[in-house]
């Protein structure tokens, strides 16, 4: 059964329409990658699922119930956690405090400080460092860890690779199987197509707010993806 169903949503920022009738569904335990160039509406899609944006049309259902009008802080206890684009750490707090804030509305589950540090060993020695002084990779790992601290059923990852050195991106993606192994459903948004394809069970490509390509990584060809990506 689908854990998350997004049904033909339109999303506006003021009069700027960022999403035109996108639909998708993610099954419990599945990993879906949404790819597309910047400006394609990927981040807006995740924000709408997390509750930071409201769809003007269409519906968002979680576990069969409509959540389209719930504010973000009421979605967390249901088990929806977003690692936002740009990481959005709390800069005046330490890495560990950031993780603890993530547990503000914690649900029962496997994730706690210990298991997060075990999954992201690079955080372990940095726990008392101010988030503002942490490196990009440390911040990204902490941002994912912070989202895990509430033990989400659905983890939304926005542009994990952005601005990070390839080796760091590798490290972070290497921890994703540990997360999905706990049964967590993951929806990942990426510009870096290769990484997205490696971890995803299914891929959906957006261009300027619409879905232009969909399939399993095995079905899609390089040319199809390049065409869908640039629209030329």
């Amino acid at each position, binding site marked *: 059964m689908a854990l998350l169903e997004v049904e033909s949503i339109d999303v506006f920022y003021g009069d700027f329409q960022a999403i035109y009738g996108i639909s998708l569904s993610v099954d419990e335990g599945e990993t879906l990658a949404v790819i597309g160039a910047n400006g394609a509406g990927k981040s807006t899609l995740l924000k709408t699922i997390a509750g930071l944006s409201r769809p003007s049309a269409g519906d968002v259902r979680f576990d069969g119930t409509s959540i389209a009008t719930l504010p973000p*802080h009421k979605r967390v206890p249901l088990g929806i956690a977003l690692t936002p684009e740009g990481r959005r750490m*709390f800069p*005046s707090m330490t890495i560990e405090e950031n993780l603890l804030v993530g547990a503000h509305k914690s649900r029962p589950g496997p994730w706690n400080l210990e298991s997060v540090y075990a999954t992201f060993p690079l955080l372990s020695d940095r726990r008392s460092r101010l988030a503002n002084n942490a490196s990009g990779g440390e911040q990204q790992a902490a941002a994912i860890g912070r989202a895990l601290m509430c033990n989400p059923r659905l983890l939304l990852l926005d542009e994990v690779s952005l601005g990070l050195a390839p080796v760091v991106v590798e490290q972070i993606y290497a921890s994703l199987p540990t997360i999905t192994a706990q049964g967590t459903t993951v929806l990942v948004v990426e510009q870096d197509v290769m990484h997205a394809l490696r971890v995803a069970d299914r891929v959906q490509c957006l261009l300027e707010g619409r879905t232009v390509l969909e399939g399993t990584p095995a079905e899609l060809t390089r040319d199809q993806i390049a065409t869908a990506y640039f629209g030329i």
Partner: protein
Amino acid sequence: MEWANAVVQGLLLGGLYALLAAGLSLMFGVMRLVNLAHGALAIVAAYLGYVLVQNTGLPPFATIIVVIPVMAALGWVLQSTLLNTALNKQALAPILVTFGLAVILQNLMLQLFTADYRSIQVGDLAGASIQITPEIAIGVFPLITFIVGVIVIAALQQYLARTKTGRAMRATSDDREAATLMGIDNKRIYALATAIALAIVGVAGIFIGIKTQFNAYSGDTYLIFAFEAVIIGGLGSLWGTLAGGMILGVATTVGAQLFPSSGTLLADLVFLAILAFLPTGLFPKVVNG
């Protein structure tokens, strides 16, 4: 040494200013709201203490047991209704609304208590002092004020650093939107911050009521001192606020010797000088969110 005495008295006075400033700083830190009614609210608390002492015979310091919850409840209600609405309106709305609130409170108090000066009587304690050297005597009441100021600031600091809701408050201050993604209800956090701020102002109000004579308009001066302490100490730093309060306290007592008719002049000038030469305050916030 008259001057040394003035400095010691000033340092102690700084505790009271810091108490006043802590609430202002907390509200600004958490929701970027400058509460122009802060001084008037301190006087509301002072009158509350005065009425309690007059009518129930409660010992002056014991009024805090009533004043703190009343002020906290007032803060919660004020934030949940008026101030949250103002924060969602145009940019100038919060300033104008809190200014309007100050005018309302002041004139309400004026109507209820007239313009006569009142004070909360503590009897012998008011004059009691500990002789340190032949020239310097420390008043018992100023000392209590200072200790309470330090304790409240330390407690607030610990609350923000160690507790779950304290962390949620700092997270909201750093990045409100990201905080909501952690399941934090920012309206509730705002109401809580204002409740705490007013509880602290409540304590400050009682001490003002005991320390000096006050009337409905006395809050203006205290709002200015609180604001100056926050700016001198640097936004977002509570210990900086305490230091700022102590600098102002010394400037006030020394200034009272220099200009007997305008006691606060030197403090204001010190503030303006710091503003001119150190625009981020003495203890600039280490990080900027």
